[in-house]
């Protein structure tokens, strides 16, 4: 099996694993982790496709590879934003629950309008 096919199949399993964690894990930080696993799986999938497009003296198709670099940086910024939201929720409410009913211990934040 070529490296591209092997890592391509590995990527599909990573996407599945991450998707499961995104749905089944209740803690938001673990959801962020799972989101990152899905993201890396998608990147690896695109990387495998880039590897298949090797040619003209390049080890892989440079267009998807360049998109991957953009994607990794944007995924980091999305993760940082998600973590900041989560920490703010924790500071404001003392909990990080995503349950729809409001937990009884919510204290309004002094700074909010």
């Amino acid at each position: 099996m070529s490296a591209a096919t092997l890592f391509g199949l590995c990527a599909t399993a990573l996407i599945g694993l991450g998707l499961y964690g995104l749905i089944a894990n209740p803690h938001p930080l673990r959801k962020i982790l799972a989101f990152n696993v899905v993201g890396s799986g998608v990147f690896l999938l695109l990387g495998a496709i880039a590897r298949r497009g090797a040619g003209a003296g390049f080890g892989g198709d440079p267009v998807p590879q360049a998109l991957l670099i953009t994607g990794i940086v944007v995924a980091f910024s999305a993760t940082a934003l998600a973590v900041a939201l989560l920490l703010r929720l924790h500071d404001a409410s003392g909990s990080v629950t995503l349950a729809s009913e409001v937990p009884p211990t919510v204290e309004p934040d002094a700074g909010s309008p």
Partner: protein
Amino acid sequence: MMEALNAGLALLLLALAAWTIVGRDAFAAVAGFVAYGLLLTLAWVQLSGVDVALTEAAIGGGLTGALLIGAVARLRDTEAAARAERPKALTRTLAALVAGAVTVALAISILALPDPAPTLAPDVAANIGATGVGNPITAVLLAFRAMDTLLEAIVLVFALIGVWSLAPDRAWGGRPGPLHLADPNGILAYIARVLPPIGIIVGMYIFWAGADHPGGKFQGATILAAMWLLVMMAGLTDAPPISRAWLRIGLVAGPLVFIAIGLAGAVAAGAFLAYPDGYAKPLIIVIELALMPTLALILALLLVGAPQRAGER
């Protein structure tokens, strides 16, 4: 031999991902994710994506790990409550079925990919001469698909605005992140004095090498951002208040230069972000030089987080 190494690497990736997803302890999951990012770097090398490996090493190995470790330490007390919210067995089974179906569908499409694979590599090879750069990735990022890179830089600015907007009212305009106490004789202060000069040289080297070899502004900027963060974590300097004028100018300078050159291209070469003949390489270098400090500032401040301490206005 190479096949065995790749198979082992893929299995390890899967095992660490599974651990990150199903592990009970949140910190253990994050530590697993840090290790996972490192193995991913090796996988990128095996897929002939050294540029991508370099990005993954800098972002996945450095910044993402530090971000998540910081978050998991602050959210320690919320883990028990979250465990009580664990979905029912039926929900989890359904989730597993959905995830399994997605995996199977993707695996089938991977195996059914056309052969020979469609590729833009010959087009890149045919046109790279016009850009003057030797690294095809840099040519794609800053010439053939420069619009993507411009929008990405703008997305990063928006992400930082989003993070900052989470500040409580009293802290708006103030300094982000917790106050780090310095121990001037401690080992942390020591490494924060020794490492940054080396890191700045390496970061600039990776940036400069990007014209002809794997490397470039993203990777270089990430290294510079990490060095700045190290100095901040050691307490040798504090994060700047977000109301500082130099900071805000720095955050938009890169994209503004990029847009200005793009508009100049519309006048001089007939299309937004087109480069006049013979000027491609100098313009690419100007854009990269302008983007790098902006990217380093944004990446570091994204990790520091929302303003928490009231600043002098």
